[in-house]
């Protein structure tokens, strides 16, 4: 039994912060206080907007209802929300790659994925319990533009096939489980 209103989904919120100490923390409170589960924060310090603000991208999980509360709470605190939810980075794709990641040059794999998919790798975790010479796994979070997820996955599959890596994809067709 899964009612879509109760289902936790991944959202991306893009904010512009004033360049003052404590602003980032202040922006995260409304998310945590309203039951959002923070997944990643991308703080683009070097990338000022023309108005001198700092863009921040927050990936989070919440039910649709809680997500509305989060957006309202952020607005109530006068945060400048550029995008929220399904508009631009509607699809935060998580994939796991396994195989001889290190021997096949992980950083080349990543940059190749970014170029080929027009996606941004926003998060990376590596697990190599047997040492880097053996089979290891990496979890990547890719932010792609709406409608581009299928292309991004196709490109990942191709790169993985070239390097003989195993890809564990997210669900397609309808997304969340």
């Amino acid at each position, binding site marked *: 039994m*899964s009612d*879509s209103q109760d289902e936790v989904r991944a959202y991306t919120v893009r904010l512009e912060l004033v360049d003052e100490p404590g602003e980032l923390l202040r922006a995260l409170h409304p998310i945590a206080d309203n039951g959002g589960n923070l997944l990643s924060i991308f703080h683009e310090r070097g990338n000022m907007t023309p108005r001198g603000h700092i863009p921040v991208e927050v990936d989070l999980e919440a039910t649709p209802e809680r997500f509305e509360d989060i957006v309202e709470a952020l607005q109530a605190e006068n945060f400048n929300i550029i995008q929220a939810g399904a508009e631009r980075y509607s699809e935060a794709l998580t994939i796991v790659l396994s195989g001889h990641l290190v021997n096949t040059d992980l950083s080349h794999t990543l940059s190749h994925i970014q170029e080929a998919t027009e996606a941004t790798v926003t998060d990376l975790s590596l697990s190599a319990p047997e040492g880097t010479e053996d089979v*290891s*796994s990496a979890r990547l979070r890719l932010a792609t533009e709406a409608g581009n997820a299928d292309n991004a996955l196709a490109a990942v599959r191709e790169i993985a096939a070239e390097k003989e890596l*195993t890809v564990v994809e997210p669900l397609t067709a309808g997304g969340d489980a």
Partner: protein
Amino acid sequence: MKLAVLGAGAVGRSVAELAGDYGHTVTALADSSGAVVDGDGIDVDAALAAKEADGTVGSARPETALEAEYDALVEATPTTLGDAEPGFGHVEAALERDRHVVLANKGPVAERYADVRALERESAGDVLFEATVGGAMPVLSTIDDFDPEHITAARGVLNGTANFILSRMAAEGLGYEHVLAEAQDLGVAEADPTFDVEGTDAALKCVIVANVLAGERREYTLDDATVEGISSIPGSALELAQEDGRTIRLIGEVADGDVRVGPRLVPENAALSVSGTRNIVQLETEHAGRLNISGRGAGGPETASAVLADVGRLPEA
């Protein structure tokens, strides 16, 4: 209804044992080397005891079961690929006699769906195959009730062996080979687990669902499916998935004309991440959102109950 049961493996045996419970009479039972036939009803217990003792259910030739008196043929011989023989030939023989066919064997409807449907059109008999997808779970009959035209996609966990291995690997932090050996000891995995762990079994079920959803528009076979198994998934992949609130499941998907089976990331608390040998199918309906059907996807009595549910759906002769 009078039933001829072909195949005396776990499913065929259970059908023969449970048929009486559902008000049916078994008039023939055959395995690959022998048969027992009686128009008034065979002695099922004696036949199964003979199978235990001598390796076969009876001394008659196996073909005599096909020629016996029956209303519905239950085809429960092992699934074969390609031309799906001998299962397909059994279906053909029954339909030519205007008898009904209930399949537990996936081969004919996964590899030769259009041929089966063409034979059915020429026959007064019907072909039903609920037991081929998801064991005890009423997947195909639910699709039929909703009308395939109003179902846009299907996906699910359709292989208990692969699911058992992945859930044990995640729960215990063990490697694939270790858990596979354990599954074989428990009888959850077969000595040759290729069919299950390489995704073939799940793919056949997805192909059958794709055929039912497509109706007359297109025929699918195993060749149309993109299939990846779970044997190259290391423990570290499950660990990374878990850190992120997810897990890995062997998921079959039927959507937009594609049939795909492979390891997928699924939220840990989602309906799809069933554990152990349990199966689940999710149907995306056009007007009623998502439907989840979950239960035991394999096993003798479980699959036999789906066969006997099909027998109950057949029109009386």
